[in-house]
């Protein structure tokens, strides 16, 4: 697998995790997990 594909895959997974962290930050009411989700 070429390095460009590797980079593309990692970017895609990073984008998914970033979006999920944003969702967790916006929707959770528990203070601890509200700030742990973006992490």
């Amino acid at each position, binding site marked *: *697998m070429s390095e*460009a594909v*590797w980079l593309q895959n990692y970017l895609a997974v990073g984008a998914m995790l*970033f979006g*999920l962290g944003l969702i967790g930050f916006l929707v*959770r009411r*528990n203070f601890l997990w509200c700030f742990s989700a973006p992490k």
Partner: protein
Amino acid sequence: MIGTVLVAQETATWGAGAFPPLPGWLVVLLLGTVGIWLMLPVRRHRTRIVGAILSAAAAVWIVGRLLPQNASLESLLFWALAGLTVGSAVAMITARKPVYSAIWFAAVLLGTAGLLMINGAQFLGVATLAVYAGAIVVTFLFVLMLAQPEGESFYDRISWGPVPAALGTFAGMAVVVVLSWSIAEASEVMQSLPGTQPGRAKEVLAEHHVATLGRHLFSVNLLAVEVAGLLLLAALVGAIVMAEHGNATVAELRAKVETSALPSEPSPIEPSPIEPTSSGRPGASHV
């Protein structure tokens, strides 16, 4: 430079002023938003399965757009670990109990460490596991057990109401879809870019980087590492004991309150209940 190449490639592909087709990505945005919203702890458990199916369909569609034609075993391993990471992240933000969120967070870190390791960053993977799963998650569990020994409040177990949760989910999924769309559209340009220097990767993987650090950690600093591990273990046991003691104290207090609240003669300072009048409005006769 890369931006110029991207713009040139986009213009050549779609023509000036034209945009790539979007309907598929919009369907994915809708599917993902509805799926995750259904999984959030604002609804009953029965809709979580439907939400999981919709979210999985959206994720599979995105991966299908990004997966190259000649997928190798290496890339399958990558996507398996990526699936573990993303799936655990979804479970973490949709879990009803904060303790379960902590466990799913540890699973996210496990998948992330695996992704780092197959990319050649062994030390980063092990450090992620040791620092985050070994220390941060344990600290979270301390906080959860010590701050509320009587159990979490109901508002800790649920998310915001349906409308704010839907808006937040839509915002997050919009970020995912826009970023994935950009990555998928730029894949050809990225593959045409010159690769990184192979010598650099070999240098990073050289023995003197990781092995020396590990040898130093477990030889010169062996005592400090073991003491730190023992301290964390003792703190964990202490937290469990304190949480159990807190549960017992709360139960005793609750029993005392219930015993003292048995029906007896009304207190003179207790206000008398307002009797409803013939009009049905309580207290209307006093007006």
